């Protein structure tokens, strides 16, 4: 049983403000919460292994993507570290995994009652839709995993995130570590209680892995991206095969989710420069 873990930070128990997860201008709180983040990841691995998981690959998927504290993790896992990966939060998921966990995930941009909700780059991406459906990071990432034949088995985060994922993928086991009150407040489990819940959830998720399905988008895949600002749309409309479908909207259609995913990454990279 090979397990892939994409790990984010906003959905970790106790997190309710950007300072807690801001690695670029490190706030004293970041050092504290990167530890809670790492401990939730370690708990998931421990629980998964109780149910028979063997090889584990953890993709650090938050901010500059080098947040995990190695001292708090088992010595025998592999970790993807560092930024600017072409497949970002789901890099290297195409090498024969039996299932995937999304740990510390958060709601999509615009979700009400979702702590620190955003979809990749909030200064650029106002809304992402694939084949007409509004997508969170969990959705677009799961779609790439689905194309690789890897089912999503577990998601952890706030209630909005977990319920949002389960609405599209009812087979996913959810661990709710907090209830969001708004974008910047939550009623949360303690880190210790959250870690126990995540470990138990992981164990159950692996135990019922055979019932999980693949999340796959029907080709041709239509991606519509609404940008935060018109000047960003000016820029990203220059991307090959992109159509300017509105003053602050672009559209891209392709049969391959890999190409769509990379085009999405190109959009928020280029848009950030505008």
């Amino acid at each position, binding site marked *: 049983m090979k397990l892939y873990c994409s790990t984010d930070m906003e959905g970790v128990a106790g997190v309710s403000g950007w300072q807690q997860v801001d690695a670029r201008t490190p706030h004293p709180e970041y050092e504290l919460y990167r530890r809670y983040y790492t401990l939730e990841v370690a708990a998931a691995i421990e629980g998964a292994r109780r149910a028979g998981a063997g090889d584990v690959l953890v993709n650090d998927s938050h901010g500059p993507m080098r947040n995990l504290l190695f001292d708090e993790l088992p010595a025998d896992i592999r970790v993807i570290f560092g930024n600017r990966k072409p497949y970002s939060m789901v890099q290297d998921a195409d090498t024969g995994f039996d299932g995937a966990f999304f740990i510390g995930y958060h709601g999509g941009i615009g979700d009400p009652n979702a702590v620190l909700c955003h979809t990749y780059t909030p200064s650029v991406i106002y809304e992402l839709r694939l084949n007409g459906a509004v997508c969170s990071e969990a959705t677009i990432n799961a779609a790439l995993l689905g194309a690789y034949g890897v089912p999503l088995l577990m998601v952890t985060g706030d209630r909005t995130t977990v319920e949002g994922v389960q609405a599209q993928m009812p087979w996913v086991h959810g661990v709710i570590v907090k209830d969001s009150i708004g974008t910047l407040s939550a009623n949360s489990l303690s880190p210790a209680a959250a870690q126990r819940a995540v470990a138990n959830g992981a164990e159950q998720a692996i135990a019922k892995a055979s019932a999980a399905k693949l999340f796959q988008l029907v080709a041709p895949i239509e991606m519509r991206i609404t940008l935060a600002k018109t*000047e960003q749309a*000016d820029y990203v409309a220059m991307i*090959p095969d992109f159509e300017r479908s509105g003053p602050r909207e672009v559209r891209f259609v392709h049969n391959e989710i890999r*190409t769509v995913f990379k*085009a999405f990454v190109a959009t928020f*990279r*280029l848009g950030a*420069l505008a």
Partner: protein
Amino acid sequence: MKIYVSADMEGTAGVCAWAQVDPSNTHEYPVYRRYMTREVRAAIDGARSAGGSEFLVNDSHWDMRNLLWDELPEDVRVISGARKPLSMAQGAEQRFDAAFFTGYHARIGEAGAVLAHTYSDATLYDVRVNGTPCTEALLNAAILGLYGTPVALVTGDRATIESVTAALPWVVGVAVKDAIGYFSANTLTPVAACAAIADGAREALAALPRAKPFTFTPPIELVIETAKTEQADFMELLPRVERIGGRAVRFRDDDYPTVFRAFLAAMRIGGAANLPA
């Protein structure tokens, strides 16, 4: 006659350093933007005396709002401002009788050429279309050519003139300076340069019958070599952009404006790679 003018700055007489052409420079730039504007004015005046009647000037340098209105005739139109989808060739989608490239410079990597670069020296190490290393002049000429407009005049340093006239032999070149190196030149004075440019513009319009619109032959292959590998990492994210080397990408299409837009998108996303990771 309708004339299109794409106006750059590095090839203006007297210019031999970035400080002279950098809009954030408060000391030298204000002087040289005036000389840049006067060279544009000289080209317009010369053309008018040979039948030019309608002028569209595309400010094509840096943030593309350099030209001083006080130094220009009142009856020209000006394209001002950056981030234009066709950049230095913006506005070329209609047919003009002739195009002028003023203040142009040589391509990145050319020796003996003042401030030689191709769009972005921070990102682009080399740009080739169908195997030919391209100057900005050639990349822009192919947009104009597609809509039937021939380039008739280019002004800049001697290296620029020689490379442009090698590719487009009908173009009249006015060499306002001889480069000694990247940051030095033996130059005409601004006044003498303006007189030479006015004469050149007259000559260019007189020679117009042998000028031809320039186009690249499809299928068009664009190869970009980047200054750094991380820039190629970002360019490779773009649809249909292929990674062909550690610091090289390729894009192919039959439609040149599509290639040109992909080129600009690649250059800009490459620029995003220069930000902290």
